[in-house]
């Protein structure tokens, strides 16, 4: 009788212990553009996040808690972004959110997370003003405000340029905000601008603008464009005999330029938080794991998403989960700012920024940009 009781209590005790050790999964919401025009950015982001979460779970999760990803498609549209955020926050009751893919969607949906007091972590939003929405908004995507001055400086040192011509897309939030940051950086570095030209999304001929640029006789061309327009601009410039170096914004930082500007892709300077050529062991490991898991080479969006998941996991590790969602969400928010990480994109930490009302708001990334120049279909690191 006594023995039976002992066995029973032992079994109960074991199962009780076991039950505690398994604990609950940590739900993490992901809003990414998986269909539509922005899917070219959303898919690598999803794959980067999935890879990191799988690696963390294989190693026993975060303090024994598995990470459970709930992935929703926000199509790169602002209303969809808001709907998805609300669904993840109020229905799936996630601990935190990753996304959305585009800055436009973030402007519309991040306030939802801020009001609900849920951490939202952007991995690809580079436009100004996203993190000024509030103190629950974080991103590890390095803004062009930080990258472009370094790109210009390194390019100027290497090419000895004295004055530049500027060409940018004025109808897109991304390329326009890139231009604003280039303008500021050029002013700070005291580099005179010979001429400023504009184009619109979907344009196919850029020869009038390029002829003006040639006539203004600059030492380099500053280009704030997405690859779809930027690559033809480079091709047509070379056709007109303009052999000057191009200095591109983040939109031009894509290996697609090698296909789209085939044979004319050399001498393009870009700054990036991540490079496929970066020799750091963390980066080599990431590239190998990504290639094995997804069968394609990663890009900067995948690398940043991959690191973001590790940064969040690092913060989750330091907090004690109570099972009360509001308390845990707040604890995560308080733990994140001090988190540091050394991942595929190099050493990383957060920096608090000042919001529109002059009060401290969300958190941007502090990271050194890698400046590269294209040479024979490869990137060569220059800093």
């Amino acid at each position, binding site marked *: 009788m006594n023995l039976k009781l002992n066995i029973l209590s032992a079994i109960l005790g074991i199962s009780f212990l076991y039950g505690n050790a398994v604990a609950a999964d940590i739900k993490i919401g992901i809003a990414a553009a*998986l*269909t*539509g025009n922005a899917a070219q950015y959303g898919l690598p982001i999803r794959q980067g996040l999935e890879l990191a979460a799988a690696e963390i779970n294989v190693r026993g999760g975060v303090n024994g808690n598995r990470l459970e990803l709930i992935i*929703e*498609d926000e199509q790169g549209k*602002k*209303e*969809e972004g*808001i*709907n998805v955020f*609300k*669904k993840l*926050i*109020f*229905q799936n009751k996630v601990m935190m959110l990753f996304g959305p893919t585009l800055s*436009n969607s973030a*402007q*519309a949906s991040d*306030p939802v997370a801020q009001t609900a007091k849920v951490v939202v972590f952007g991995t690809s939003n580079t*436009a100004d*003003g996203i993190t000024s929405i509030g103190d629950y908004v974080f991103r590890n995507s390095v803004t062009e405000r930080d990258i472009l001055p370094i790109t210009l400086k390194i390019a100027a040192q290497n090419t000895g340029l004295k004055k530049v011509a500027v060409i940018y897309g*004025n*109808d*897109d*939030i991304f*390329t*326009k*905000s890139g231009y604003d940051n280039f303008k500021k950086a050029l002013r700070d570095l005291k580099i005179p601008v010979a001429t400023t030209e504009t184009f619109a999304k979907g344009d196919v001929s850029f020869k009038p603008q390029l002829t003006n640029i040639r006539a203004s006789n600059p030492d380099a061309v500053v280009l704030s464009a997405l690859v779809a327009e930027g690559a033809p601009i480079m091709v047509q410039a070379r056709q007109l005999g303009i052999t000057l170096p191009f200095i591109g914004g983040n939109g031009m930082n894509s290996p697609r330029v090698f296909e789209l500007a085939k044979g004319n892709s050399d001498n393009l300077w870009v700054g990036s938080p991540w490079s496929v050529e970066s020799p750091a062991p963390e980066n080599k490991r990431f590239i190998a794991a990504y290639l094995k898991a997804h069968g394609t080479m990663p890009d900067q969006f995948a690398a940043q998403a991959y690191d973001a998941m590790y940064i969040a996991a690092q913060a989750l590790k330091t907090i004690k989960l109570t099972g009360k969602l509001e308390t845990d969400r707040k604890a995560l928010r308080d733990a994140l700012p001090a988190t540091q990480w050394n991942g595929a994109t190099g050493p990383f930490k957060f920096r608090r920024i000042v919001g*529109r009302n002059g009060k401290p708001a969300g958190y941007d990334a502090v990271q050194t940009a890698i400046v590269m120049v294209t040479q024979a279909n490869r990137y060569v690191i220059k800093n």
Partner: protein
Amino acid sequence: MEWLDNFWATYSTLLLSVGTNVLLALSIYLTLACGLLTVANAAFMAIGAYTAALLTLQTGTPFLLALILGALLPALVAMLIGRPTLRLSGVYLAMATLAFGEVVRILILNAEDLTGGALGLNGIAQLTTGFDVAFALIGALYVLLRFAGSRIGRAMAAIRQDEIATELMGLNVRAYKLFAFVLGAALAGLAGALNAHFTFFISPNEYGFERAVEILAMGVLGGTGSPWGAVLGGVVITLLPELLRGFGHYRPLINGVVLIVIIIYSPQGIWDLTRFIRRRHSGKPAVN
């Protein structure tokens, strides 16, 4: 009650979008009911959205006044451009209004100091409540349903059937067309003003060609025989993608297939399907 709170928290934006999209569908219904193919409603929506958002953002205008001005300014613009463009008909009218839409979008894009250009306006206060949208919707529907059986509604139907015959009967065809165009612009502007105040952010590119076609699709899918058709079209086009969320990657595909099937089997729109029910109840053949 907790369930209801949670439901509202999750789906409030979706329901508000249904409301503003139905207003947009009603705005295109007005011109379609006159047999006019105009695609300027996205531009009128943009004018309404920017007017109202700039008023509440920069001058602290009361929301109600901002909404009224957000409906009035597009109406005024419609009156100005309606006079010359409504002389056109068919595909030429569609092209002229399409061009007008592009002009508005590019103007907003380049008036950077006022509108923020491509960067858009952000930090717009969340002022739109369910009551605002419901009130606007009920008001618009009431007026349009009253039209249907009135002199104005009959005149519009006559213009759609045969414009020359209507003119020969002594009706001022051009005045009726302009009336429909201007009222449609006001409704689209109101929808834009309401929409801007629950999505935090507006930018010129969301009022481009894609939006214009979406509005037209809502009107055509629902059917132009009755304002109820526009209501159905707006509801279906807004809710369908959300209901199909479970299909994951295949969502846009299935969404498209459903719309194609509807149009093949009911070319006059969804509302046309209900004519069988209506006939049975009224005991006499329904008038198309």
